[in-house]
């Protein structure tokens, strides 16, 4: 099995995995899915807002990786390449259909989109987390496709700026500008929530 370092593969084991993927080893593809399947699914569900459509995209992404692996040079990281393929497929899917931003009365947008919440250390327990996360998810819906993609790649999946920019298919400068605007909008939502919470307590 592969050794990991903070969610990323050790360079030697990653190169071994890439070599096996190049030989179109199906078990190696399974290893890739085990390692990055969660991130692939999170990215697709966050962007598409539809768990079924997102799972279809992940399935197609894995098949595309298997087909394209013999030509993968490995200069980019495997995770970056994988996220780029998923992001491209999501963009294609969003172009094909109108973005469904959900319904304002939807009480649990995370659940309907197939997303779940990890407990966060040092969380401010006074705040209603579920309500805040639901508001944040709706706020993400109001962003443009590019801004939403930037927030998900960088802040939700924790990719570096270089990795996230490559996955988004833009330069690091363009990516940072998108992310900056996206965060500004989201922070306004959070501030409003906090004010509302302080007024009620």
């Amino acid at each position, binding site marked *: 099995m592969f050794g990991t370092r903070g969610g990323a593969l050790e360079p030697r084991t990653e190169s071994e995995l890439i070599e096996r993927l190049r030989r179109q080893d*199906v078990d190696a*593809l*399974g290893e890739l*899915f*085990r390692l990055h*399947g*969660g991130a*692939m*699914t*999170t990215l697709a*569900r*966050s962007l598409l807002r539809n*768990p079924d459509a*997102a*799972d279809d995209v*992940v*399935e197609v992404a*894995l*098949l595309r990786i*298997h087909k394209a692996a013999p030509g993968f040079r490995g200069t980019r990281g495997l995770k970056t390449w994988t996220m780029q393929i998923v992001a491209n497929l999501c963009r294609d899917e969003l172009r094909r259909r109108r973005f469904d931003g959900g319904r304002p009365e939807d009480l649990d947008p*995370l659940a309907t989109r*197939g*997303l*779940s*919440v*990890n*407990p*966060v250390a*040092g*969380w*401010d327990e006074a705040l209603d987390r579920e309500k*805040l*996360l639901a508001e*944040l*998810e709706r706020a993400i819906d109001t962003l443009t496709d590019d801004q939403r993609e930037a*927030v998900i790649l960088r*802040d*939700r999946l*924790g990719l570096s*700026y270089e990795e996230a920019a490559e996955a988004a298919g833009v330069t690091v400068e363009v990516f*940072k*500008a998108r*992310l*900056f605007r996206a*965060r500004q909008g*989201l*922070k306004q939502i*959070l*501030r409003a929530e906090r004010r509302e919470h302080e007024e009620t307590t």
Partner: protein
Amino acid sequence: VNDSMDLDDELESAGDRRLGALLRSVHAPANPAVWQRVRTRLAAAEAPARVRGLDAVLAWFTRPAALAAASAALVVALGTGWSLRDALAPAADAEVEFVATESASLIESLLDPAAATAAGLEDGGDGGETDGAAPGDSGGPS
């Protein structure tokens, strides 16, 4: 904007840290069914082409629509064959019967002079016996 972005790199402010924590707290687990579907599709794609071709032919012929069409074609062919058989059989019998009747009439006419006369096979126009010459024979030296 650039200054703000530099600060943003490390999510310096409490608001940024909070936003980052909230965003990172949401994730989706990988769906094992997706991997099963991928394995199935890859296995199907890697099967030998010959087997795939045979499977495709079998699959095509066992489709409900193909089965229904083949059954319908068989019924139509059988029905048409049966109808043609019924239609052609009486005509053939009638022709055989007509030929047999005509043959019998000719024999009877040859054997029975009265019938032959009635049938116009003998020259009974002058009411007398013929000298054996054929009708129209002048009887003169040839």
